[in-house]
């Protein structure tokens, strides 16, 4: 899948390659710095969070998206606007919980993991975990506390990559977001 997508030497793609590779370098660095995968996952999530809280401004500024009325709308914006804008992909939104407070983003292809092959000694690494952090951080800035995690990952041999996202609560007063 990644194979074809990389053929083009068009500059936008290039950038995403730069991004992909840089992210890769980061992950491997973390793997060097921390002994176990869980720590790495945590760190990735943190960094994602830090990005998220900054990213949201950029996002709101560039996508003229207004306030979302409900979680479903949020989900759509994330999938159709945010992911498209930043990663050039449009994951599908599925598996709504009956309560409508939890759903899944299904990524057919995840630019972060182009070229990546997980070595056996990193079975517990959630390679793309930064995405969870980003989503968490960004939504927190719009007063939404969410819980994000990877349910499936093609890297780990699943057919698709699935990000599971659960609405926790609405944050009333906007507490200042510090780096984690």
């Amino acid at each position, binding site marked *: 899948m990644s194979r074809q997508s*990389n053929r083009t*030497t068009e*500059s*936008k793609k*290039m*950038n*995403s*390659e*730069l*991004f992909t*590779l*840089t*992210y*890769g*370098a*980061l992950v*491997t*660095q973390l793997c060097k*710095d921390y002994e176990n995968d869980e720590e790495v996952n945590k*760190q990735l999530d943190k*960094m994602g969070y*830090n*990005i998220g809280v*900054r*990213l949201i401004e*950029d996002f709101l500024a*560039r996508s003229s998206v207004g306030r979302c009325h409900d979680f479903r709308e949020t989900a759509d914006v994330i999938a159709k606007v945010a992911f498209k*804008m*930043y*990663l*050039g992909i449009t994951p599908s939104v599925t598996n709504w919980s009956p309560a409508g407070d939890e759903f899944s983003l299904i990524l057919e292809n995840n630019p972060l993991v182009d*070229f990546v092959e997980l070595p056996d000694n990193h079975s517990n690494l959630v390679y793309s975990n930064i995405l969870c952090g980003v989503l968490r951080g960004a939504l927190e800035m719009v007063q939404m506390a969410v819980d994000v995690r990877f349910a499936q990952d093609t890297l780990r041999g699943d057919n698709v990559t699935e990000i599971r996202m659960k609405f926790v609560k609405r944050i009333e007063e906007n507490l200042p977001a510090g*780096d984690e």
Partner: protein
Amino acid sequence: MADEALFQFLHNELIQYVYKSSEQGEMENARCITKLENMGFRVGQGLIERFTKDTARFKDELDVMKFICKDFWTSVFKKQIDNLRTNHQGIYVLQDNKFRLLSQLSAGKQYLEHAPKYLAFTCGLVRGGLANLGVKSIVTAEVSVMPACKFQVMIQKV
């Protein structure tokens, strides 16, 4: 461009991480720079492998440098190097008058001291790219007026 914003966020986070994970001190600071540079190095290797996949074999060192200044720079920073100079003794100076990773840093002296953090990764990119093309080098950088920036490439004769 969207992707780029994302990259810059990531790049900043990278810097934050590296500097946070190490306590301060001259020694430490040096280690951070080097760490960033090394990450860049690996990325550079990968990128150049892709970029040169469909190009003809390079004639010589200069040919390679030109590629870095034109194609490579364009693909990564979406502009060419503004000026390339060499002493024909294996030293090249690449000048970028509006270096992308600095342009987000607001200009002005007080930010100048932070500039090096934002250059290390790119030094690595270049060194990695060159190394993968069989040109061993040392890449350093200098800023005096942001966001203009000079990268100096010292070729190691092997």
